[in-house]
């Protein structure tokens, strides 16, 4: 069974530029999460989807971050414009039955210069 797929794996952009990350969850997993992980810290939830509905986006900086999960499968996380402080690893995860048993992708390491 394929795991959670994310692309790109690495991205380097200049500040004020836009960037987008893509995630394909495990087949059949209705719940999808986007996390941000800063160096030396644990992941922090940005947004959670149940199918195509964003049910928790309280930690998403909505002035510059947006996300979508069309058709309840793949998801895209966008930052526009990027700031230096956005440099981090962006992780996508999905879960099926037990919300605390999440399957993570390898992440996208974003560097903003």
């Amino acid at each position, binding site marked *: 069974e394929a795991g*959670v797929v994310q692309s790109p794996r690495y991205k380097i952009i200049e500040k004020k530029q836009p960037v987008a990350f893509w995630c394909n969850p495990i087949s059949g997993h209705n719940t999808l999460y986007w996390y941000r992980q800063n160096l030396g*810290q*644990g992941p922090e939830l940005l947004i*959670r989807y149940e199918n195509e509905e964003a049910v928790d986006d309280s930690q998403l900086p909505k002035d510059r971050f947006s996300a979508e999960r069309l058709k309840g499968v793949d998801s895209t996380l966008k930052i526009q414009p990027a700031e230096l402080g956005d440099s981090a690893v962006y*992780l996508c995860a999905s879960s099926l039955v037990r919300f*605390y*048993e*999440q399957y993570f992708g*390898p*992440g996208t390491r974003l560097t903003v210069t």
Partner: protein
Amino acid sequence: GESVGLHLPTLSVQEGDNSIINCAYSNSASDYFIWYKQESGKGPQFIIDIRSNMDKRQGQRVTVLLNKTVKHLSLQIAATQPGDSAVYFCAAPPMEYGNKLVFGAGTILRVKS
């Protein structure tokens, strides 16, 4: 406020020895406590969970101990192997936040051969 923290940021053990990774939590209302493992360049991987009405749970080479009196959680790894080298996170879902995991900062486990 809600926090999940770790006592030791780095733990070095000899291959074959047992490892004990500790975690303190502040929210007594969590129903579950979960351990994740994150290898370098990868996303976190679910290891094991323990419900708040239990004080011990065993998995394959791992044992979780929960001491609710002192709000302490530990992960014991038997016969530590080089493949166990990773960052270990404890996580708890605060009941007032619904199905949301809050991760601690992590403990680095280094296995010496």
